[in-house]
């Protein structure tokens, strides 16, 4: 497993480094504007940026033929799928650490940046990243990495779309539910925690589906 993770890192190390620098730069710019809308982006963008090279790996592996060769190595097919998902999670955490780091620095310099709301934005960012992985991996295994650019685009649209759809649905629920039931609840936290848990479950379900698709694949 370590070898597979290492291989993925070597394959897209340059992209990871570029996205890392770009993420810090953009998050810093967004934060220092202190515009509320852009502050949300500061919590989203690094996480999304950092996971996109993880999806790029599949394209590299297919283009080079590694996806065929890897099956001859002393590894199970499940190890290959697991390594893809694990690498995705590792990059997602790096993205999250960038966000936390930039927010902490901004808080020290500007104050009132690392507010409670910022934590919810980060949770939402992780949720959107889970949707990306949830859609991209099974679809790429199924349709082939030649379509990976289109799949990545669909995943990003689906991730952001699902987030806005969930927000709208949540608002509708709040409107229609008796105010007594919701009394004393932190609505933002409830939404972000709910979105995170649901997308995490979807991500786990997608791993099971991707594994089944990958086991049937021929190279």
């Amino acid at each position, binding site marked *: 497993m370590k*070898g597979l993770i290492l291989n993925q890192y070597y394959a897209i190390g340059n992209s990871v480094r570029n996205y890392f620098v770009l993420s810090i730069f953009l998050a810093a710019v967004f934060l220092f504007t202190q515009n509320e809308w852009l502050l949300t982006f500061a919590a989203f963008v690094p996480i999304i940026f950092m996971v996109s090279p993880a999806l790029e790996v599949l394209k590299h592996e297919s283009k080079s033929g590694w996806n065929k060769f890897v099956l001859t190595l002393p590894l199970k097919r499940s190890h290959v799928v697991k390594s893809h998902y694990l690498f995705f999670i590792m990059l997602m955490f790096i993205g999250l650490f960038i966000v936390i780091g930039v927010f902490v620095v901004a808080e020290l310099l500007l104050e009132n940046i690392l507010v409670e709301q910022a934590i919810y934005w980060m949770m939402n960012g992780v949720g959107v990243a889970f949707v990306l992985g949830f859609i991209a991996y099974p679809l790429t295994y199924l349709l082939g990495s030649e379509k990976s650019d289109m799949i990545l685009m669909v995943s990003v649209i689906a991730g952001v779309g699902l987030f806005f759809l969930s927000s709208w649905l949540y608002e509708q629920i709040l409107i229609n539910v008796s105010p007594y039931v919701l009394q004393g609840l932190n609505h933002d936290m409830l939404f972000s925690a709910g979105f995170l848990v649901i997308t995490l479950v979807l991500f786990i379900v997608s791993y099971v589906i991707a594994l089944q698709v990958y086991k049937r694949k021929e190279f």
Partner: protein
Amino acid sequence: MSSILEVDHLNKQYSESDFALKDVSFSIPYGSIVGFIGENGAGKSTTMGSILGTLHKDGGSVKIFGEEMNVEKLDIKENIGVVFDNIHLPEALTVLKLGNVFNNIYEQWDQETFDHYIDLFSLPRKKKISGFSRGMSMKLSVAIALSHNADLLILDEATAGLDPTGRDELLDVLRAFGKDQDHGILLSSHITSDIEKIADDLIFIKDGTILLNVNKKELMKQYAILQCDKNEFVHIDQNLVITHRKKGSDIDVLVSDREQVPASIKKKDFSIDDITLLLMRGEKV
């Protein structure tokens, strides 16, 4: 247990094409090199893919080291070295990084042996694989296959793209590997002269069916290509005829025992290339 690899009635059909492997059976004895010969699309790569598990076989059995092959059996795969017909290594990596990756995948990875082959094949350590020529890539693939103490090598067109010197180097390495009585090699190649140089046994395949499986020495000593006309052809024992091909008024005939053929019929000098051509183009009786 006398065979390192036993393939028994292997069947494989593709859903999107008419091609199929039909009851492919053969074995590789320990300490031998088996040449796998056939045209493009004959079924060599499909057979190898079905053995290795990159393709799902429809039926039949594949035993490696006496055990039924299963892609989940890691100890079997640990002991197989594979080279495909094209580079199948991550292009963004260098030889150094690749060594590091395999060191973390193969339990038996031997970095010293890998370094030895990298030096032997004069491969650059810090250049990205994407910048390698086809010949360099094939040498690198062979170096990897030989660097984890594998006992069985499965090589699909491993000599393709190499210059004559490179091919010679590679064949020497494979010959030395194959001499060990714990080892075995299945080697496919379009370049039959390569197979002729190192193989002990030959398997000819066409349209997914094995046409001939024979010991090389026996083939060269006992078999014959006859050149005859229609009248002479009918006097040949048809049980001896493997295949024949009409060429104008003449017929080229491959027979399995030159001693049992009427002495009056002309016997041609032949190479494995001639046998291959006759098998691939000829008709069965």
